[in-house]
């Protein structure tokens, strides 16, 4: 029987029983004839190999994941839109947004802006009044504050200019001695005061220079006492006017130098 099958087995039989062969549904004699034919047939051997690999690949293919929204879409279509997520969370749902960083930054920025505008418009934080928050009051106060700041700035620049002029004049005077003692040479023990050693008495030019320096210092003191705003020139002003008397000396920083 097996020998007959082997002898008479055709390519059409192989093709027709290919799946039965894979499923193990052939009789033993049929299986032997099938194998014998497939081993010798140039047409059936590659077909057997390719279908065998294909079945292996098909059965090895994994099931795809269904999109999560599909389940909800099906439930919505069949059971209707779900109501459980709408009730309480819907009413208090907006509170969840407060904890978000974006909201915190936005709130901080808004409050800072409000604080700056309120302060600039003259709003009193110690004694707050509702009337101060009216737009006309805010506009009036802001205008007054702007003029005040401008006036203070102009006065500050003017004071700086005066100080700079004084400093310039003092720098010019640094080239000559700043006291009478320095201007007059030391007297020898055996000589009369006002006389140099073996020379003529001190010239009137040196006396005049010392007198001029004294006069400048008196003038400076007068200016400072007459302009109290100069005493408020900040200590860091020296950074903007190098070489002047500002840096940290505090000379002009006192009210009564």
């Amino acid at each position, binding site marked *: 029987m097996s020998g007959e099958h082997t002898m008479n087995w055709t390519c059409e039989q192989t093709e027709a029983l290919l799946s039965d062969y894979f499923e193990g549904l052939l009789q033993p004699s049929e299986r032997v004839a099938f194998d014998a034919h497939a081993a010798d047939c140039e047409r059936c051997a590659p077909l057997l190999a390719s279908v065998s690999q*294909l079945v*292996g690949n098909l059965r090895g*293919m994994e*099931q795809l994941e269904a999109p999560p929204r599909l389940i909800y879409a*099906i*439930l919505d279509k069949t059971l209707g839109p779900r109501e459980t997520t709408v009730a309480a969370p819907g009413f208090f749902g907006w509170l969840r947004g407060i904890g978000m960083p974006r909201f915190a930054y936005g709130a901080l920025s808004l409050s800072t802006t409000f604080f700056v505008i309120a302060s600039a418009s003259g709003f009193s934080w110690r004694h707050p009044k509702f009337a101060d928050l009216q737009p006309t009051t805010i506009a009036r106060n802001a205008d007054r504050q702007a003029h005040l700041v401008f006036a203070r700035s102009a006065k500050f620049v003017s004071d700086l200019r005066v100080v700079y002029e004084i400093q310039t004049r003092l720098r010019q005077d640094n080239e000559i001695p700043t006291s009478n003692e320095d201007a007059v040479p030391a007297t020898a023990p055996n000589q009369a005061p006002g006389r140099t050693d073996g020379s003529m008495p001190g010239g009137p030019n040196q006396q005049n220079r010392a007198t001029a320096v004294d006069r400048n210092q008196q003038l400076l003191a007068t200016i400072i006492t007459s302009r109290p705003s100069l005493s408020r020139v900040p200590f860091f002003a020296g950074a903007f006017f190098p070489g002047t008397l500002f840096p940290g000396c505090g000379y002009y920083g006192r009210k009564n130098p």
Partner: protein
Amino acid sequence: MEQDAQLVQQCLQGDGSAWEELVRRHTRRIFNICYRFTGNRTEAEDLSQEVFLRVYRTLASYRSAHGGFVTWMTSVTRNLLIDHYRRTRRDRITDSLEDAMPAVENKQSSARRPDDLALLGELSTQIQMGLTKLSPELREAVILRDLQQLEYGEIQQVLSVPEGTVKSRINRGRIELARILQQMGVRPS
């Protein structure tokens, strides 16, 4: 299986959670059948929704004595897929005319949706493309047997054809698909 039948009974008594459980248990399988048959993710999602909608409406007609819930549901799916195939036949005829031009074919194959390509491996993608070139009778037989791995008897119930026809379709489907892949230059691993 028994659990499915029990859930169906609960559904018929108005238990919504039982229906939700049924949906969660079978969505993936139904989506896969639809995707393998159509080769299109969006169509597969729409068809899956239609399947469950029809199942929900005709749940009372299910009789556990006539077979498992899976077989019944697969049968509903298959009928919908065949209806969908017939509805969209005209579009496919136009597509097949365009496919006759090699340049257009290359363009279409390269213009396949990226998410579809990402969804499957390269070989799986090629097998999926080969599947969509099979006739619907052979395609459904191969899908049910080799991808869903149903038994011959279950496939017979789903397709409502004799077992000999089922075997014949599966066999011809495999041989045809192997030839299509060979023509596409695919070398199975």
